[in-house]
């Protein structure tokens, strides 16, 4: 057997294995408007895995109590499950210590926490925060807010027509006036994968700490925060087959240690008196109030599921599917692909003839095909391309080539209806 043949067989075996995972996601097995659901909107929110739903349900049925507070059995069980979920995340991203892994409500809160607690106290007029043109609004607006409050300047690094970040321009602006570089790992609108490890190295050489918005990366590739050496890494549970309302902020211990609390309340204190309050240790210093216990447990289940499947395997599967999708869409004369970077995750924005993305979304939904349409919370990206929005198909581990074929058929119908 030739090497190429062997490779093909391996690939087929991997596909066969991946296809069986589809049944781990109960919501996928339904008809929408009379056709089996094709879910191509995982970049907005992924479908929850059965193990996640069951972990939450088991907790709610048998183990619920407040965490870190009671001496009774249920409180012990809840605390064990909650902290067990943290351990799972620590292992998943290879954090150096569990105190570096904070539960938040999601990527947005994680970024706001860093903006308010890490950056704002260090910012003076004339300092800079650097971001790129392809960021999601949640990695733009928190920085605009603190720049406005402090007189610091927000520097935005250019992208090109392919959706690549101008790295040369980025490296040139990094100096000691820059107090943070905040970048996406993967662009949600364009799919571009940024060379985070290389960027972090350059930034650190210039003495600039780096926050990585990992919302679009975490479910699609292996993420090792120690290998990336980033200072902060943020992501959300609902984009990795877990529940909404839960996310993670990873931060280096020395930085988190020096940061003031972001919110005040219960659980984040050691001692409170009217003379003053002593704050709790990490990570609890940043987890004021009763946390989202059930969702944290759900996130833990999602992480264990992803580890069992294997991130390398997921990445290869999605790379194959993306190539299939890009080639299918790219072969249509009236499709304009938005986002054609060399290194991409399973996200493809596009426009079909002059059909408005919203009309396209409705026509596709009619055929059971769910895509995202609009500006994808990345209005500056849309302005760059001179458009108001795009249609976007995004992939996850449960998609297959049949899904892409159905997308193509659905686009043909849209064309038939609109472009006679």
């Amino acid at each position, binding site marked *: 057997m030739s090497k190429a043949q062997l490779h093909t067989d391996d690939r087929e075996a991997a596909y066969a294995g991946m296809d069986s995972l589809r049944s781990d996601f109960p919501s996928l097995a339904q008809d929408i408007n*009379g*056709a089996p659901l094709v879910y191509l909107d995982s970049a907005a929110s992924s479908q929850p895995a059965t193990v996640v739903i069951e972990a939450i349900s088991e907790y709610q049925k048998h183990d619920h109590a407040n965490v870190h507070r009671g001496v009774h059995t249920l409180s012990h069980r809840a605390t064990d499950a909650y902290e067990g979920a943290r351990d799972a995340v620590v292992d998943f991203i290879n954090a150096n210590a569990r105190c570096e892994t904070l539960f938040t409500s999601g990527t947005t809160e994680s970024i706001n926490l860093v903006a308010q607690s890490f950056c704002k106290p260090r910012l003076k007029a004339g300092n800079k925060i650097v971001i790129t043109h392809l960021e999601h609004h949640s990695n733009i607006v928190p920085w605009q807010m603190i720049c406005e409050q402090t007189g610091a300047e927000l520097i935005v690094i250019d992208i090109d027509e392919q959706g690549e970040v101008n790295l040369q321009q980025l490296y040139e602006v990094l100096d000691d006036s820059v107090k943070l570089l905040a970048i996406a790992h993967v662009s949600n609108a364009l799919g571009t994968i940024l060379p985070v490890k290389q960027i972090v190295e350059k930034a650190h050489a210039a003495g600039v700490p780096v926050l990585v918005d990992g919302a679009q990366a975490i479910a699609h590739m292996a993420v090792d925060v120690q290998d990336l050496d980033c200072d902060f890494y943020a992501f959300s549970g609902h984009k990795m087959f877990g529940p909404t309302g839960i996310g993670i902020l990873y931060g280096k211990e020395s930085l988190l240690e020096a940061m003031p609390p972001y919110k005040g309340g219960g659980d984040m204190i050691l001692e409170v008196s009217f003379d003053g309050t002593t704050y709790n240790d990490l990570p609890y210093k940043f987890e004021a109030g009763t946390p989202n216990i059930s969702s944290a447990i759900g996130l833990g289940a999602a992480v264990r599921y992803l580890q069992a499947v294997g991130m390398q395997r997921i990445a290869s599967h999605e790379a194959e599917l993306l190539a299939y999708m890009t080639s299918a869409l790219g072969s249509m004369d009236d499709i304009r692909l938005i986002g054609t970077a060399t290194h991409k995750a399973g996200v493809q924005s596009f426009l079909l003839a002059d*059909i408005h993305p*919203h*009309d396209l979304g*409705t026509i596709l939904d009619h055929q059971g095909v769910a895509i995202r349409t*609009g*500006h994808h919370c990345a209005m500056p990206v849309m302005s760059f391309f001179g458009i*108001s929005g795009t249609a976007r198909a995004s992939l996850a581990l449960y998609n297959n080539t049949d899904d892409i074929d159905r997308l193509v058929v659905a686009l043909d119908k849209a064309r038939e209806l*609109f472009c006679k």
Partner: protein
Amino acid sequence: MNDDAQTHSDLRELYRELILDHARSPRHFGKLEGATHSADGINPLCGDKLKLYFRLDDDMRITDACFEGSGCAISVASASLLTDTVTGMTRAEATDFFHAVTDSLSGRTESAPIDLGKLRALQGVRQYPSRVKCATLSWHAMNAALNQDKNPATTE
């Protein structure tokens, strides 16, 4: 009827020929010089952005109506139909129409107190909650213009 034909006929309810025609060739499209009333309509969810212009005479009768901007087929067709419909109406009549149209498209009343005429073609959106906002955007913008609101109209 097979599933395929069913899909098509449902979509045809939404994208009727009149809608597609107005979306492809919007009437009164462009800026109106000498407008006495104007307002923006913004749908932040979709990014649809329309600007409506009106010229009212001394009797508060709409003598001209125009619009410009970008949006989906439903919002553009609705704006185009609006400019066709309200030209010649008094401000009070146009305001009555605003209420009748937005109520009818939102499904608040089954039959509008006013004969909506060709605007009935927009009623396909009732089945699509997320698209009702597209169809009503220009109407909210008109209402803001006629009331001389300073803030842009939104459908949120």
